[in-house]
């Protein structure tokens, strides 16, 4: 099994998700919300003009990152990065913005995760080590967005599978994951089962099983 650099892994995950969204957007407009980290990178790779980015801190139609000389610290996304406007964008207060999410109007959210289990439970808000104290919009997003796409490296820093049988960390939502994209594979949840959809060229199915704790179905 060939190893992939962290940077390469992240870019591949973002590209894979961007391709998925470009395909979905062929049927019509697609409204997406992107979390911090790999999820934000997805915006760099989507090509469809019918994809619109929502930021839960109160903006629909978020544009690309603001160039250094044109940063406005009152024009930010939920990761506090300075962004730009797109034509037809609009601003919302936080209740209206989360209403848009909770009401099921946002087609997809891309988020990172510490763990996802084979029952589609997501753990991405806290590692109970006493150093973190925050949930932000994570729970609202996984329960509100129509499709929840998990963007994460396959293995933790210590080499453990992040796709697990059962989440050991506090969960963010019950059974909310719809798709998991790692640098080695794409999985979807259908009918309460985790199904393998794609495998990266440098990995065999056997190798994938060996680095994946969760049970998955190969169609």
């Amino acid at each position: 099994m060939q190893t992939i650099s962290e940077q390469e892994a992240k870019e591949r995950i973002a590209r894979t998700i961007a391709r998925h969204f470009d395909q979905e957007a062929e049927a019509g407009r697609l409204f997406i919300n992107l979390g911090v980290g790999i999820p934000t990178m997805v915006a760099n790779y989507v090509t469809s003009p019918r994809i619109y980015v929502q930021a839960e801190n109160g903006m629909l139609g978020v544009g690309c990152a603001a160039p250094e000389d044109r940063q406005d610290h009152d024009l930010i996304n939920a990761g506090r990065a300075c962004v730009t406007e797109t034509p037809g964008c609009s601003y919302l207060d936080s209740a209206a913005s989360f209403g848009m999410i909770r009401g099921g109007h946002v087609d997809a959210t891309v988020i990172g995760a510490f763990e996802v289990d084979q029952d589609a439970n997501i753990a991405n808000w806290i590692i109970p080590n006493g150093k973190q104290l925050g949930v932000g919009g994570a729970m609202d997003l996984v329960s509100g967005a129509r499709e929840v796409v998990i963007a994460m490296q396959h293995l933790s820093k210590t080499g453990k599978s992040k796709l697990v049988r059962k989440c050991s960390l506090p969960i963010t939502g019950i059974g909310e994951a719809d798709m998991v994209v790692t640098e080695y594979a794409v999985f979807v949840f259908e009918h309460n089962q985790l199904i393998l959809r794609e495998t990266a060229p440098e990995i065999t199915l056997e190798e994938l099983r060996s680095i994946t704790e969760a049970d998955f179905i190969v169609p």
Partner: protein
Amino acid sequence: MYSDKYSSVTDAIAKVTRGSRVMVGSFGMAGYPGALIEALADSGIGDLTIISNDLGAPGVGLGRLLSNNQIRGLIGTYYNWNPEVATAYNEGRISVKLVPQGTFAEAIRAAGVGIPAFFTPTAAGTQLAEGKETRRFDDRPCVLEEAIHADVALIKAYKADELGNLVYYKTARNFNPVMAMAADLVIAEVDEIVPSGSLDPECVITPHIYVDVLTMKGN
């Protein structure tokens, strides 16, 4: 421009009393009533419960209130940007109530519009729903959340007219409009006060009925 609601920052903050529940608008440093917070930190008023999305950064902005030991409790969504919060909490110096960001925004709006409690799917089945009533609607478990009200709201708007109608600026809007509805006393820090009738009646975000005091930085 004259307004009968106008007050100096110092006089405005003098209305906050020891033990108050104080809402503060902002998301990170966007839409942040900076002059009011500095004055509140300078005042040394203590035993406060601060209701805000986050607590800025260590020793900066709202973070100063924690460094100054002015805080008894926090109600908010995301304190990872200020690790001093977790430390103070672990040492038992402050209480912290974490609320999902969308629930937080909706609960503040609820207080403003006279809704004492509502059901939401967000957080159902998670640690943040423990001890709360859960009920199924359309076969989906939902959590009963109560309105969040405050004694005082410190908000940041862009422009006010003489009456106190407010408009905001880009993503600095965030929690400010809902907090403007949810406190007994609402103090708005603005960049400019314009004549009545010069704001488009279609574009007023916070009608003047909600605003008690107007103040400006450096006055």
